[in-house]
């Protein structure tokens, strides 16, 4: 074990959530983290707080206040008008120094992924990225679960002797919190020392990315897996998606073969999706894939292997040959559409 002095875990209490923003609104990953945090906090009866760093955030603050968090620490300053890693970390660290939370949860947005390792390193503590499950031990150890490298293996990770325990979670992995019936949030407005607001980063130009239609936004998604023997056969998923007004997704394997672009990849290292309906075609359902779509409302899986892992998470499991099923399905849908 480490030769650090033994950590006094009881000195670190509660869960702190980094409230990610998207423009003037709260990024929905935050509500998913609140949902999970409230669950984790229950057995230990500890507090859930949020930290909000930015400028002119009254409407974001109002959004956040609708949830059952105890406190929101607000760092509102002109210096935070744009996201600058160095000074955001200063605010984050100052809050952690004061609050001493046992757990810090950060959404894996670009900015989250940028600051999480900085803050964790500042506290010489551990960070597990892209957790797919989180549970709490009685001794306040956070059990951090995520798929391990390759194959169908999960890793159970613990930060046994350091605090806070940091974890990032991707959007669409955990269920959102429900809004509170009687929210009673304490707003704590925090000031950071001037020297902590000096950034080595200067932003000279900002440009919004043109929003390409992204599979993460699709209500209906048809996904192709290794059941397809040739790139030429992919027309089946393209057409099915087309007649259903949906989009096409792919597993990692087909992206690595060059049959699809990374933009179509569903999974932990691809995109996380939460469509109303997802139809997986010839997808075996590795843990990395499942992590990216497990929360879809209706999962319909078609695979010729009755033991395919995807069937353990699908709402409807159909064991059959996609080469027979898909063309017939497309025909039937076209007839129905034509009949109307």
């Amino acid at each position, binding site marked *: 074990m480490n030769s650090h002095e033994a950590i006094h875990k009881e000195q670190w209490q509660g869960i702190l959530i980094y409230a990610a923003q998207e423009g003037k609104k709260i990024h929905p990953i935050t509500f998913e983290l609140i949902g999970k945090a409230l669950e984790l906090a229950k057995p230990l009866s500890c507090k859930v707080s949020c930290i909000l760093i930015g400028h002119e955030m009254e409407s974001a603050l109002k959004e956040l206040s609708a949830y059952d968090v105890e406190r929101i620490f607000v760092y509102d300053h002109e210096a935070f008008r744009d996201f600058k890693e160095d000074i955001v970390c200063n605010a984050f660290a100052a809050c952690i120094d004061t609050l001493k939370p046992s757990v810090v949860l950060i959404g894996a947005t670009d900015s989250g992924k940028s600051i999480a390792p900085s803050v964790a390193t500042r506290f010489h503590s551990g960070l597990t990225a892209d957790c797919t499950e989180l549970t709490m031990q009685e001794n306040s150890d956070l059990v951090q679960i995520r798929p391990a490298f390759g194959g169908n293996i999960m890793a*159970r990770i613990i930060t046994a002797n350091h605090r806070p325990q940091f974890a990032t979670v991707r959007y669409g992995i955990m269920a959102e919190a429900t809004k509170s019936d009687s929210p009673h949030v304490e707003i704590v407005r925090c000031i950071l020392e001037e020297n902590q607001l000096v950034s080595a980063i200067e932003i000279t130009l900002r440009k919004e990315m043109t929003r390409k239609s992204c599979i993460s936004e699709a209500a209906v998604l048809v996904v192709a897996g290794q059941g397809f023997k040739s790139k030429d056969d992919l027309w089946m998923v393209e057409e099915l998606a087309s007649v259903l007004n949906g989009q096409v997704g792919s597993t990692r394997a087909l992206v690595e073969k060059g049959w699809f672009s990374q933009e179509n990849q569903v999974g932990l290292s691809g995109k996380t999706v939460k469509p109303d309906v997802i139809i997986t075609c010839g997808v075996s359902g590795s843990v990395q894939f499942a992590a990216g779509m497990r929360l879809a409302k209706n999962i319909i899986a078609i695979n010729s292997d009755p033991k395919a892992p995807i069937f353990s998470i699908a709402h409807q499991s159909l064991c059959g040959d996609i080469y027979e*099923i898909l063309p*017939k399905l497309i025909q039937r849908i076209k007839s129905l559409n034509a009949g109307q």
Partner: protein
Amino acid sequence: MKIAVCIKQVPAFSEVMMDPVKGILLREGTSVRINPYDLTAVEAALQLKERYNGLTTAITMGPKSAKEALITCLSMGVDEGVLLTDPIFAGADVYATSYTLTAGLSRSGPFDIIICGKKTTDGDTGQVGPAIAEHLGIPHVYNVTHLDGVEGRFISLTQMIDSQYLTIKVRMPCVLVISKEAFIPRLPSLKLKLAAKKKEIRIMTVDDLEGANLSKLGMEGSPTHVDRIYTPDRSLKEQVLTGHSDELVDRLIGLLKDHKVI
């Protein structure tokens, strides 16, 4: 201008064994390659070197065989290679890895710019770059898509973050985490490869890291540890429907109607 680039050798394919007791990858004996994200970082370093007459150093932490990865970098045009290798470094999580790389960088530098790939295809955490910056107490910029230029002590670049492109000036020394799409890595050249064979890769073991905190190295220095690995429960959620494809198609039509997709 001194530029460092951190690289890692990763398994060439997705299927690699894990040690179920220690929860770490069994790297010996598997086919390896340079992490593709790091090749982009190397290209970024080389372009800066060419433009500003800089000196580039590739650094990696790994088994002795990771020397090959450094030779590949030299064959692409990198000037020097540093290999941090020692049994005590093994089994490191992000904290211990970044601490060790930082120790190597401090003793090979000082560097004006340290470039890292966005993540690796094995660990996939994407944390080491920002962690190194924190250990060094210097700023980092995440997801750099374009390098614009250097003026005095500032480097201008473009960052893509949360659906925005930001044009930024950052003070050096700094760490840059490069987006995979930012550059297309050049291929090694035979001429450079032959020249590389004559170059010495600097090897650093724990004895070369004088002054480093030994308790922050390797498995012992890792705040996180893998408690166990396991195969997830594969029990079926619902009954698996079988039958003739016509019956299954009927079923699918029914489902799609129920879910109001058609």
